[in-house]
């Protein structure tokens, strides 16, 4: 029997580490593992429906991981990816805690809860843009992510409209109790839409800048377009899992991976972030007003 010469593991690792995509891939995997540990380990001893401030600890962990990349030269290639992850975690925490912060600061002058959510969403979008600006200013040109915020051509607009129609059709085709989209509440819609409609659009914009702008833009600098898209979609899915890991909708979160793939493909295809922003905003607004919450808030 002829023996096939195999490459030693150490040599293979050396070869992999020399590949252009290695720093980005290693950063993404290790950072996700770290954030996952920060998220999941405390579940063993804390109550996710009670005191557990899991968004706050994800934010703190993401900042603790990202900050050194601004100063340690060796971590320079990891910087855009770590900034993207920090943007995801910190601005979502800002969105979640925003209404309470506003109430604590301004009392009744902070307006209705809907108004507070709107201002928190605006803060999320502005925070995301600030981190995107920081990435633009501090990341070397060869690793700088392309945000694709310029230009919405007719083709992109049409893609956004058609994609929205397809997504809503798909949501109607899925059994209602799976999504909880059992009814519309006209009184609540009339009361809430003026604040929560724009708030959802701002949230969608922020998330698209984070995932399809910063993250996809950074990954595709060193990875093939396909792997870059798969990677950002995986993080998009994991981020949704982080939001709802305690609820019964967690098994459906993998769907967000597919949605992330589709959005990534669309952004690359149209070379614009805006079609994905349009579809994402429409989907979030439909979820806001078409889903009737359950007893436990989901």
């Amino acid at each position, binding site marked *: 029997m002829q023996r096939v010469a195999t490459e030693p593991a150490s040599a293979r690792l050396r070869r992999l*580490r*020399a590949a*252009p995509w*290695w*720093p980005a891939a*290693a*950063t993404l995997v*290790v*950072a996700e*593992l*770290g*954030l996952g*540990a*920060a998220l999941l*380990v*405390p579940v*063993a*001893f*804390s*109550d996710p*429906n*009670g*005191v*557990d*401030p899991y968004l706050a*600890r994800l934010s*703190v*962990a993401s900042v*603790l*991981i990202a900050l050194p990349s601004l100063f*340690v030269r*060796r*971590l*320079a*290639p*990891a910087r855009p990816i770590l900034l993207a992850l920090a943007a995801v975690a910190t601005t979502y925490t800002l969105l979640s805690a925003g209404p309470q912060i506003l109430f604590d600061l301004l009392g009744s002058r902070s307006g209705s809860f809907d108004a507070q959510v709107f201002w928190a969403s605006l803060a999320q979008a502005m925070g995301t843009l600030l981190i995107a600006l920081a990435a633009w200013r501090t990341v070397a040109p*060869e*690793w700088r992510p392309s945000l694709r915020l310029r230009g919405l051509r007719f083709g992109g607009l049409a893609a956004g409209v058609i994609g929205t129609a397809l997504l809503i059709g798909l949501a*109607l085709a*899925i*059994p*209602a*109790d799976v999504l*909880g*989209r*059992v*009814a*519309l*509440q*006209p*009184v*609540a819609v009339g*009361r809430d839409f003026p604040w929560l409609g724009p708030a959802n659009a701002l949230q969608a914009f922020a998330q698209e800048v984070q995932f399809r702008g910063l993250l996809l833009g950074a990954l595709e*600098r060193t990875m093939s377009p396909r792997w870059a898209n798969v990677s950002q979609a995986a993080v998009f899915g994991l981020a949704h899992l982080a939001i709802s890991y305690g609820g019964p909708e967690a098994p459906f979160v993998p769907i967000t991976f597919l949605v992330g793939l589709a959005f990534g493909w669309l952004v690359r295809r149209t070379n614009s972030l805006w079609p994905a922003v349009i579809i994402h905003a429409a989907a979030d607004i439909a979820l806001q007003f*078409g889903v*009737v*919450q*359950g*007893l*436990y808030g989901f």
Partner: protein
Amino acid sequence: MGSEPRRSAMGTAAAACVALTVLAVGSVTAHAASQWWSPVALSGTAVTGVSAIGDTITVRTGGGTTLASTDSGRTFAPVPGNPALPPTGTVTSGDDLWRIDSSGRILHATRLADRNLAPFPDSRAPRLGRGADLIAAPAALPGVVIAVGTDGTVWRRGQDGDWKQALLLLPQSLVQGVPRVTSVTAFTQPLSAAIYLGTAGYAVLISTDGGDDWIRAGPGLPDSVYALSADSARHAVYAGTSDGLWVHVLQELPAPPAYQDAALVWRWIGIGAVTIVAAALTLFGMLRLVPRRVSDPTS
């Protein structure tokens, strides 16, 4: 990596594991809330009508038999003569009486203005359609009324007397269509502001603010609910479903537990420790994996 830093890293990891184990063992376990709906009787039988007053519960089965229980639902026996349940379409709440007439108009009478309780049409109310008979008025919210049209639209009357569409059910799927609203009820004593809406597909929805906002409130209940009856005497709502008779005893909406003892402090310490350890290990891992010299991606 030298042996000294490695020993140090392993020591840190071991200390973290020990700390987490102590926290996990020492923390207080959370207790689940009591069931929102509980089965009462007639499992396997469709119950299409229910009327509950104190210990007496009368039900109508899908087979057209009227059964009654005088021991809170423990045992049921056929009612002699097999009478139908009393017609719905009228509700008395506090000093008010509301009725849907045969043409679908909503009539209103108030004891304060009319000793005889002779109802007159509510001029601002929508026409519900001929045969409509679902109406409820929670005594805890005087002036609020919920009525259901024959087209399935749920209407609500606010305390200002204004009627608005409150709920439009969406299709179950592309093939199943919109489920039917089968029942609506509320407590006629000021026990709770909740309004309960039964559907043949989405179980029960409730509103606690007079019909403006709704939540799904049927965990554990079969999807097909055919009848509801609120019994103020027992602080309970009975549901006739495709699988027997169920009861919900009035209780607070589920809320996250609030910890105020030492367990809370330990949880915070544990969460903070995990966050710092996870971030440190991540940085350590990245420094190990990212090569010292990175090739230019554009080359």
